């Protein structure tokens, strides 16, 4: 059984017909040829397939495409604009925050979404007082990124890269995932 849906992926609108069993991840990769999001565990446990789904980070392997008709999706590749890498892309490179790179697109999307959540004042499981809006120290970043697994052991550098973007000189250039695409790179 099939359904007609529309997805906007990295600013491009697609109309497609999908078998109802196809996940968002498989629709991206197999139907649209968008391979930025990676298939790791395919069971929601590794985070490799994370994208920004309507502005919020989400895994795509446990979401049927048919249930996300009209969704706006940004992949890690789509975070780059006009040949310019996203500040998180650059920070990952500068900090040597990946080895094989397979989990990196999911890590990047998750970090973008996570920084937005933190900017909204959301607490995490390591926040001592949940009525507060905690600063993004190392413990907070580790907890908030725990849905993304890296088997290479680059984790320490991932935290360092995100920390730099969250707190350092790259902050001013950092766009919000919730903002419309065209306004992100002012």
């Amino acid at each position, binding site marked *: 059984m099939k*359904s007609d849906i529309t997805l906007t992926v990295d600013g491009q609108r697609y109309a497609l017909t999908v078998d109802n069993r196809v996940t968002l991840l498989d629709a991206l990769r197999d139907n649209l040829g968008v391979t930025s999001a990676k298939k790791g565990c395919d069971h929601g446990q590794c985070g490799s397939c994370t994208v920004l789904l309507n502005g919020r980070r*989400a895994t795509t392997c446990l979401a*049927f495409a048919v249930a996300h008709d009209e969704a706006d999706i940004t992949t890690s590749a789509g975070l780059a604009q006009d040949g310019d890498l996203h500040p998180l892309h650059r920070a990952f490179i500068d900090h040597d925050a990946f080895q094989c790179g397979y989990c990196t697109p999911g890590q990047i999307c998750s970090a973008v*979404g996570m920084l937005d959540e933190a900017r*909204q004042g959301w*607490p995490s499981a390591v926040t001592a007082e*949940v009525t507060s809006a905690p600063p993004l120290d190392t413990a907070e970043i580790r907890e908030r990124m725990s849905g993304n697994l890296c088997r290479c052991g680059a984790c320490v550098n991932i935290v360092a890269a995100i920390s730099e973007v969250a707190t350092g000189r790259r902050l001013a250039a950092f766009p919000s995932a919730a903002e419309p695409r065209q306004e992100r790179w002012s």
Partner: protein
Amino acid sequence: MIPFEYKQAEDEHTAVATVTGNSRAAFLGGGTNLVDHMKLGIAAPELLVDVTRLPLDRIECLPDGGLRVGAAVRNSDLAADSAVRERYPVLTQALLAGASGQLRNLATTGGNLLQRTRCVYFQDTTTPCNKREPGQGCSALEGHTRYHAVLGASKHCVAVHPSDMAVALAALDALVHVQGPDGGRAIPATELHRLPGEHPEWDTVLRHGELITAVELPPLPFATRSRYRKARDRASFAFALVSVAAALDVTDGIVRGARIAFGGLAHKPWRARLAEQALLGRPATDDEFRASAEAELADAQPLPGNEFKLPMARNMLVATLRELSGDDAP
């Protein structure tokens, strides 16, 4: 995965009627558990009725000081809600202790309550499991029991309920509102989930076609001092070995009110009424906290391999109550 038909629910009543009319239909929420089960071959619905776009995504403050949470509210939004954080910090902490940021952005309140056990034998269709296929036998009884139940289990099933959120809701005396083919009803959160008994295949008291529409949190002023504590095999993104949800009212060093529930110990969130009774009117001391835990756990029947859960549960309860009774308590 078998082919299935997909429908967007138009309204509650149509959604309920559609699922009621087809024994192989299911409601679809965020999908983070159901889709996984369809991939694993544990669930094979032929019709999915998507209820995520129904207008059930609001959190409303009630006149009596309580909260009404729509069933389609995402776990991340519920955890971040300012009224929840102020009035029921235990609920925010429980939600944030579960899954990952990406999954909490998808998962819904109703779906979280209806997630099924992560017992490895239930998830592995090549091993016998009475919960998946009644009459097959329970592989866990002779298997790896580290994660299994120590309270309320039966010879047919020793699986534990996985939700962190549900443990907090059990402690808070939440009400679960459901809509069914014969109208609506409200079920106390403590009575939504079942112990396995002879029918481990039934996780809850819901009938086929009944849809969770909202969760209502009654006012509980002393829940501003409440906490969720969780022990697991890694620092984050893992199910509980043992968890504790507690709220404590201490005046002049005496316990005036206590709400306690355990996760990871039973087939359902385990409301610790014996421990609560043991604490009422008693001094807020470690000895009393320890005695209350012993009262609750006296009838526990651990399996070879999960005896550690008893001292773990006792110590976690003592530490949690100590923290809640201290001068620097939240």
